[in-house]
């Protein structure tokens, strides 16, 4: 039994059960992403404490002021403090992400799982995804907003609509891939039922890809929802949203530059942060696999 001794040294003593999520987020890019998102989330959560004004308070005489000590980003066209509006805008954006992305993931994932199990459902789901994917999300957004009117609802719908096929396809292909693996074959050969294989092998093993996609989707969702708010088909005024504040700022570029720069920076940091988290997780998963 020479080999037992020989290999013993290479084997780690402590089992490390959640390496991907942990390793992905504690180093390098993933860590930067977590910090960026953390800061923004904190700004959003603490907005009531941090914001010097109410986001809807119209301050008398403060029409389109430039940046100053009292108004770090200046004031807007109806005399509100842009800084406070940006802080509160983070909340609504994150809130939509928090609702829509998991919803899209769950729905898409379920459809993907069902599709991977039966041939007819698969063909149907694939074509349906094709059709949905053929419409750019922004056009979808304009269309849905025309039906439902502006508001949070169409934004949530569009984000879900955009994410759903992504998760559906991801889960489907990942499931089909995992199903071909010998350990699933082994389980089936020993008489395990479909449900057993799905629950015990497939779902746990595709979870990592789903989590990476969650981070990517969050980034994409911030894009879509701020674009819709930017186009004026999202959150209704006077509720502040990042895209909405940016859109309002577009008309005032000449008067107050910071008005646009504030929301712009936050959006960039958000999408970038989620993107970095996704990259970190992905790198960790690849590292873990090799």
């Amino acid at each position, binding site marked *: 039994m020479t080999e037992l001794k020989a290999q013993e040294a290479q084997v780690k003593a402590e089992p490390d059960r959640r390496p991907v999520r942990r390793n992905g987020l504690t180093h390098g890019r993933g860590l930067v992403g977590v910090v960026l998102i953390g800061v923004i989330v904190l700004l959003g959560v603490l907005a009531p404490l941090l914001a010097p004004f109410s986001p*809807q308070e*119209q301050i008398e005489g403060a*029409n*389109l002021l430039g940046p100053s000590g009292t108004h770090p980003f200046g004031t807007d*066209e*109806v*005399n509100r403090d842009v800084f406070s509006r940006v802080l509160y805008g983070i909340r609504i954006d994150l809130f939509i992400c928090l609702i829509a992305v998991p919803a899209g993931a769950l729905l898409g994932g379920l459809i993907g799982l069902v599709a991977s199990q039966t041939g007819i459902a698969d063909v149907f789901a694939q074509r349906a995804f094709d059709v949905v994917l053929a419409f750019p999300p922004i056009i979808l957004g304009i269309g849905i*907003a*025309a039906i439902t*009117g*502006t508001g949070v609802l169409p934004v949530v719908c569009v984000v879900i609509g955009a994410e759903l096929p992504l998760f559906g396809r991801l889960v489907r292909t990942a499931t089909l891939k995992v199903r071909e693996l010998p350990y699933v074959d082994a389980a089936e050969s020993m008489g395990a039922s479909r449900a057993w294989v799905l629950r015990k092998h497939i779902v746990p093993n595709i979870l990592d890809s789903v989590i990476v996609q969650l981070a990517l989707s969050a980034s994409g969702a911030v894009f879509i929802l701020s674009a819709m708010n930017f186009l*004026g088909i999202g959150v*209704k*005024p*006077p509720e502040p949203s990042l895209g909405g504040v940016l859109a*309002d700022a*577009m*008309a*005032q*570029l*000449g*008067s107050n530059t910071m008005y646009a720069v504030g929301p712009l920076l936050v959006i960039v940091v958000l999408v970038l942060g989620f993107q970095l988290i996704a990259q970190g997780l992905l790198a960790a998963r690849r590292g873990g696999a090799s």
Partner: protein
Amino acid sequence: MSTALSRRTLLSGAAGGAVLLGLTGCASAVDQETSGTPKKGGTFAGAIGTDLVPANFYTNSNDGVTTIIGLVYESLILYPNDSLKPQARLAESWTISDDGLTVTLKLRQGVKFHTGRAFTSEDVKFSLESYADPKWNGQLKSTAAAIAAVDTADPNTAVLTLKHPLGNILDLLEIVPIVDKETFAGIGDGSRYVGTGPFKFEKWTPNARLQFTKNAEYRVPDRPYLDAVDIAVIPDATAQANQIRSGQIDYAYGISNLDIERLEKAGDITKIQRTGAEIQVYVAANLTVDGLEDVRVRQAIAYALDRDRILSEVFRGAGYTASLPWPKTSPAYDEELNNFYKKDVAKAKSLLADYGKKVPTLKYSYQTPSPLFQATAQIVQANLKEIGIDVELDPLDPPTFVAQLIGGKFPGLWTAYHSWAQYTPSTLTVSAYPFNALKNSSHYESDTYIKDADAAWKQIKGDSPEAIESYRKLSKDLLDGAFLLEIAIIEGRWAVTDRVKGISYTKRSELLLTDAQLTG
């Protein structure tokens, strides 16, 4: 190619276009008018914010249409900007019979359409009939429909027989452009516009530009001075501002008042404030909505509005606050009545106290995308909060907004512009949908209002003392009913560069370039 872009091409291109910046603005401070001889020739380059919608030809509702009508067409008579005293245009003279049922128009002779065909009384008949067709949705179509017949026996005289006296018949003659029957179909699809005006329609490129050339056969000798007019469609206000600043365009219809202020201060442009072509911004209420059925609530709202702030911050002072629709140029204008509602929170609150109940949260609709309505709505929302009324904003896209306006289906309050108060006052109450006494968007029903509106409409002479008295009654009705609360009367602004002289406009904001010249 894009990447191989050399520094030189970039710079030369810049000199040709974008980076001229303030150069033209600085160089053209010479006052051309003193030099005597007008400068001829040149292409007038301008920009408008909304493109032509051919089906809206008679509705006066967008920049494309008003530009075409102003340049290509002429009406029978013309009001000066500051009054309702008709001037000759295609009609040399006109008489209204004492019973008010016959209007005789002597037409100008020797006028030719751009096709070369002579203008006759047949064209008057055709133009008025077209205007009355409901599918064209002309604002005064009820007035036009009240014309029983047009006698065209003499090609140089048109005799209109009316079903009943029409106090605003001259408004109609001022508004209706005289169109060419033979090419009329071209108007519907935007392919051909033939009129008798100073410029010929050349070409429309949807979403991009309108092009016109000089009509060398124009009835006024030596006019127009310009060789051609080229109007670009630039929906983005900032882009328009940048283009006029860099001298790429000389005229901009769609820059925000704020940008106009800024550019004017920098010496890049001058503004043309269209007094006489006023529009009104208002808040109106749907009386079938819970809470708004009570006049005290509506009056409370009227007292809560901070009209001064909206005028100065949103519209940058382009106009004056108002309680009634009539502009200062209107015979119905009455300063005292116009100042009836002033911001008075205490009074508003006491009215609400009289009402006794809590006003439920009101929906407040406005049309998107419009930064001005959005800002107005948000200020109004803050104003109403002050007196304890909660309001939820309800931005709607244009078709939905219009559908609700026409159907009277707004779920609460709404804000929009209206127009037509710069004409004979009765024109407003019989035509503008929000005001229509018989059936309006507010579902306001009042026998007195119906009676007074009808009486005003049927005045034979629109500016007689009796007429003025009838307008006063109408004004009282409006203030008492408080279903439509005026905020301000807005005089729209155009931005032009200093090298442009002689631009004018009609009461419908149609662009007139008959006397315009490009100096410098």
